[in-house]
C-alpha cells in the first residue's frame, strides 16, 4: 500500500508537524509540556487504532520530537550537575501558598534584572526559598546576595518636603480598604481603591508639617529615590508622553516640581540641549547622570567629560506619566527612572496641620468595564502596599549560607550518571538475552529503552533535571524493562491454546494493573502541595520521572514493543520448516 494513502499514518505525521512547530516556536520549558501532550495524544491514538505499524510510527515520531527538542533547546540540568551556587533565603515568618508564589515571582524579578539567565528560584516548605545561580564566581554571587537582601526605602514627598518616610510606618498596619470602608471614605464620590496605614508619633508630626495647607497637592511616592543624580530626558521620548493639551514647557515644570526635595533636588534637562548649555556639570565626583541607554554616543561622551557617572536605563523606565489634578494642574504621576511610582493627590481632610497617625490613600480608576476596573484597582492597591512596605517583599527575609558546587564536580556527577544509565541498559539487554535465548526478540528492549530515555530526558530536561529526577530516570529504565519482560514471557511461552493476540492481551492486563497501581502510589508525592500544603521540592523530580516513565510505557513503548516482538515471532514461525 502506498504510505500516502494510509490516512491514519498521515494523520500522525500531520500531528507531528504541528507539535514540531510548537517546539520550535515556544522553546523550553513549554516544549516539555508539548512533548508530554504528544505522548498522551499519540499514545491514545495508538491504543485506539490497533495496527502495529501505527504503534511503531507513533513511538518513532515522538522520539524524533524528543530528539529535535533536545537538539533545539538543549537539556537543563540542576546546579548539582552543572555547578553553581545555592543561596537559601529564609522568610521571617511562614506564609501561605499565594504569598509564597508572589515571593518567588518577586525574587525572580529582582534577580532577572541582573541579566543572569537560568537563575532558579523555588520554595522549600513555607518559610524558605532556594535561589540557584549557575555560577560560582564570588563577585557575581555577592551581587546576587546584595540584590536579594536589599530593602527599599520609601519616601513620600509633598511640595519638596519629606512628608512620610518608611521608618515611621508601622508595617503591620498597611492594609487594603474593604468595600464598606471605601464607602465611608467617599467624599463626593466613592473611590475605586484605598490603602490604610498608620505612622508613629514622629511620623504624624512630620506629615502634619509637610502637608499643612497643601490641599490638592500630590504626594510623590518614591521607592529608593536616588540622591546626587541628574536626569537627562530625550526630547522625542518626552514628547511622546506629553498629553495633547500640554507642551514641553509645562511638562518640564511639573517634572521639576516633582523632583525637588530639600538639599537633594534631582535636576532635569533635555539631553539634546546639553551641548549648548555649558553650565550643566556634575556637582560632585559621584554625581550620576540618569539617561536612556539609547542616548547618542556623542551625548554620553559629553556627560562623561563633565564629570558624570552614567546610569543608563531602558527607555521604558525613562517614560514619564502625567496626570491633571482637580484644579487642572499638570503633575508628574510616575517616572520609574527616579523611583517615582505613583503620586496620589492629598485630600482636604489631612492638610489641616493637626498631627494624625492614621492615613488612607485612595484613588480612582478610569476604566468602565467592571471586571477590568476591579483588576486594575486590585493591582493599584497591591503596588501601593508594596511601595509603603519598602519594596515588593511581603515579609522580611534573611540569607542563609551558600552552597557552592564547582562546575568540574557537577560535570563529573553528570558523566558518571550517564555512564550508569548506559551500563544498566547494556547489562539488562544481555541478561534478558541469556534468559530467553532469543536475541531477536530481546534486542528491541534496548532500542525501546533508549527511546524511553530520550523522551524522558527531553521532557524533564525542558524543565530541570536535578539529582532526584536523574535517580528517577535510572529507576524508570529498570522498572520499564519489567513490563517488557512480562510481554516477552507470555509470547515465548510454549502455549498452543492461545493465539499471539490473546497472549498479548493477557500480558497487557497485568501491565495495565501494574502501571495504574505504580502511578497511584507516587501520585500523592507529586501532589504533596495539594495534600499537605508543602511542596517537597527535593524529591518531586523523582516522583515526576517515575510517573512519566510509567505513563510513557503504558501508552507508547510497551505497545510498540509488543508489536515488534509479534512481528519477529511471526517471521520466525514462517521460516521454521513445519
Amino acid at each position: 500500500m502506498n504510505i500516502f494513502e494510509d490516512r491514519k499514518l498521515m494523520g500522525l505525521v500531520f500531528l507531528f508537524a504541528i507539535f514540531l512547530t510548537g517546539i520550535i516556536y515556544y522553546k523550553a520549558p513549554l516544549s516539555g509540556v508539548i512533548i508530554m501532550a504528544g505522548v498522551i495524544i499519540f499514545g491514545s491514538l495508538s491504543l485506539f487504532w490497533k495496527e502495529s505499524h501505527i504503534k511503531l510510527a507513533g513511538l518513532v515520531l515522538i522520539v524524533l520530537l524528543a530528539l529535535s527538542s533536545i537538539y533545539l533547546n538543549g537539556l537543563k540540568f540542576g546546579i548539582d550537575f552543572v555547578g553553581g551556587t545555592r543561596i537559601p533565603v529564609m522568610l521571617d515568618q511562614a506564609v501561605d501558598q499565594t504569598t509564597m508564589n508572589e515571593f518567588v515571582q518577586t525574587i525572580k524579578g529582582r534577580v532577572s534584572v541582573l541579566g543572569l539567565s537560568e537563575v532558579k528560584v523555588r520554595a522549600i516548605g513555607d518559610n524558605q526559598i532556594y535561589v540557584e545561580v549557575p555560577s560560582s564566581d564570588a563577585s557575581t554571587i555577592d551581587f546576587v546576595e546584595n540584590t536579594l537582601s536589599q530593602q527599599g526605602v520609601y519616601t513620600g514627598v509633598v511640595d519638596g518636603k519629606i512628608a512620610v518616610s518608611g521608618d515611621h510606618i508601622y508595617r503591620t498596619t498597611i492594609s487594603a480598604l474593604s468595600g464598606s470602608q471605601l464607602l465611608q471614605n467617599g467624599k463626593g464620590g466613592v473611590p475605586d481603591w484605598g490603602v490604610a496605614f498608620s505612622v508613629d508619633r514622629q511620623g504624624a508630626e512630620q506629615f502634619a508639617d509637610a502637608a499643612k495647607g497643601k490641599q490638592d497637592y500630590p504626594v510623590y511616592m518614591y521607592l529608593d529615590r536616588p540622591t546626587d543624580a541628574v536626569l537627562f530626558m530625550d526630547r522625542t521620548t518626552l514628547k511622546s508622553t506629553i498629553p495633547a493639551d500640554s507642551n514641553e514647557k509645562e511638562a518640564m515644570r511639573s517634572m521639576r516640581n516633582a523632583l525637588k526635595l530639600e538639599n537633594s533636588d534631582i535636576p532635569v534637562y533635555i539631553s539634546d540641549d546639553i551641548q549648548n548649555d555649558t553650565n550643566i556639570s556634575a556637582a560632585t565626583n559621584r554625581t550620576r547622570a540618569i539617561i536612556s541607554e539609547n542616548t547618542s554616543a556623542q551625548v554620553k561622551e559629553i556627560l562623561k567629560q563633565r564629570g558624570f557617572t552614567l546610569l543608563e536605563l531602558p527607555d521604558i523606565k525613562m517614560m514619564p506619566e502625567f496626570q491633571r489634578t482637580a484644579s487642572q494642574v499638570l503633575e508628574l504621576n510616575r517616572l520609574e527612572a527616579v523611583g517615582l511610582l505613583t503620586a496620589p493627590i492629598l485630600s482636604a481632610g489631612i492638610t489641616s496641620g493637626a498631627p494624625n497617625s492614621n492615613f488612607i490613600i485612595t484613588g480612582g480608576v478610569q476604566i468602565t468595564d467592571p471586571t477590568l476596573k476591579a483588576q486594575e484597582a486590585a493591582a493599584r492597591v497591591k503596588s501601593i502596599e508594596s511601595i509603603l512596605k519598602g519594596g515588593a517583599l511581603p515579609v522580611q527575609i534573611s540569607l542563609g549560607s551558600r552552597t557552592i558546587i564547582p562546575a568540574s564536580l557537577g560535570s563529573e556527577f553528570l558523566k558518571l550518571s550517564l555512564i550508569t544509565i548506559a551500563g544498566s541498559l547494556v547489562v539488562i539487554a544481555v541478561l534478558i538475552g541469556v534468559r530467553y535465548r532469543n536475541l531477536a526478540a530481546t534486542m528491541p528492549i534496548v532500542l525501546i529503552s533508549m527511546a524511553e530515555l530520550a523522551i524522558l530526558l527531553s521532557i524533564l530536561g525542558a524543565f530541570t533535571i536535578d539529582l532526584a529526577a536523574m535517580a528517577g530516570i535510572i529507576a524508570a529504565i529498570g522498572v520499564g524493562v519489567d513490563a517488557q519482560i512480562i510481554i516477552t514471557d507470555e509470547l515465548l511461552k510454549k502455549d498452543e491454546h492461545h493465539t499471539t493476540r490473546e497472549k498479548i492481551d493477557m500480558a497487557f492486563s497485568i501491565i495495565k494493573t501494574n502501571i495504574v497501581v505504580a502511578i497511584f502510589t507516587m501520585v500523592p508525592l507529586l501532589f504533596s502541595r495539594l495534600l499537605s500544603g508543602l511542596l517537597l521540592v527535593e524529591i518531586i523530580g523523582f516522583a515526576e520521572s517515575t510517573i512519566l516513565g510509567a505513563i510513557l510505557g503504558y501508552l507508547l513503548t510497551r505497545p510498540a514493543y509488543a508489536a515488534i516482538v509479534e512481528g519477529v515471532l511471526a517471521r520466525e514461525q514462517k521460516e521454521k520448516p513445519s
Partner: protein
Amino acid sequence: MGAGWGFYALSCYLPVLILMLPNIYRGNYKLLAIAPLLIIAVSLFFIPSIKMGVDFQGGTLITLSMKDSVDADQLQSQLAAEGVDATVQVFHTTMGYRTEIEVPQSKDLVKAEDLKTRFNALLPRVSQLEVAVYSNASYNDEYTQKKAELDNMSDQMFALAKTDRSRLNISGTNDLQKRFSEAYNDVYSNYQESVTGPLGRLVKYDSISIQIVSPVLSASFISSILIISVWAAILSGILVFLFFRTIVPSMAVLTGALCDVLIAMGAMGMFNIPLTLASFAALLMLVGFSLDTDILLTTRLVKRKGDPVENAFDAMKTGLTMSVAAVVSFGGLFILSVLTHIPTYYEISAVALAGLFGDMFATWGINAVMVLNYVEHRKVKQ
C-alpha cells in the same frame, strides 16, 4: 569503577540461575513462608533503630568536598574543642574526599525561632494599640501590658544575639521591630559562624554545602510525609480491591507490599540508611514495585486455568527476571552513589535494593503461599 563492571558482569549470570531453579511450590509449600517471616521478625527488631536524617530531625548537615583526606576522629575532637558538638564522617570518592559533618539542632536557634514567631504574632496588635493610644487614653493599660510582653521577648532575643539593648537606643515599636529582625539574623549568622569558622581554620576544602533544617521545617516535612503515606496506602488499597474484587487475593497482594516495606525499613535500621525525603520517596516507589510482582502472581494464579503450582512457578520465573532487571538499575545507581557519595543516590538505591531483595522473599514466600492456599481451597469446594 572496577566494582561497577564486576557487578554488571555478575548480574548477567543471574538469569542462568533463575532457569536452573526447581519448582519450589511442589510438596509442602507452606514451609516457604518460614524464611520471609524470619526476615520480617529481624526487620521489626531493627526498625526502631532507623536513624532520622537531617530533613526530619532538624539540625545542620555540612558537606565538604576536598582533595586531601582528613582524619574524622581528629576533626571531630578538634571541633569539640571549639565548642561544636558534631559527628564527622569522611568518605573516599572518585572525585577526592567528601566529609559530612552533622551538627544537632542548636538550642539558641530553636529558641530564637520560637521568639520570632511569638514576636511577629504580637506585633500587629501592639502597633495598632500604639496608634490608638495617641487619640484614646483608655487603651493605655492594654498597650502597656502588651508592649511589656514584646519588650520582654526582644530582651531575650538581644541576649541570644549578645547585643546590648541600651546601646541600640531604640526609639519606638517600629525601630524595635527592625532591631529585633537584625538580632534574629545575628543569632542565625553567629550560629553559622560558630560552625563554619572553626572548619575554615581546621580543614582545606574545595566546596561547602550547609543544609540547615529548622525545627518548624522538619516538623512540616514529617507531617507532610505522613499525609502522603496515608494517601498512597489508601489509593493503592482501593485500586487493588477494584482489580481483584475478592478479599483473600487482595489482602495477599497488600500483605506482600507491606512485608516488602517492612523488610526495606529493617534494612534501613540495620545498615544505617537514614530516613530522609529521598529514602521516603524510594519506599513509596517500592510499594509500587512490590505490587507489580504481587499482581503478576495473583493474576496468573487466580484468573488463569491450569495447575496452580505450575502457574505459581512460572510467575516466579517471570517475577525474578523482573526483579533482576530492577536490581541491575538500582545496583548501578548504588555503585554510582558509592563512587560519588551523593546522598540522594545512596538513599534511594540502598532502600530500593533492600526492598527488591525483600520483595523476592515476601512475594514468593508469603504472598504466593497465601494465594496458592486460597486457589486450592477454592478448587476443593468446587
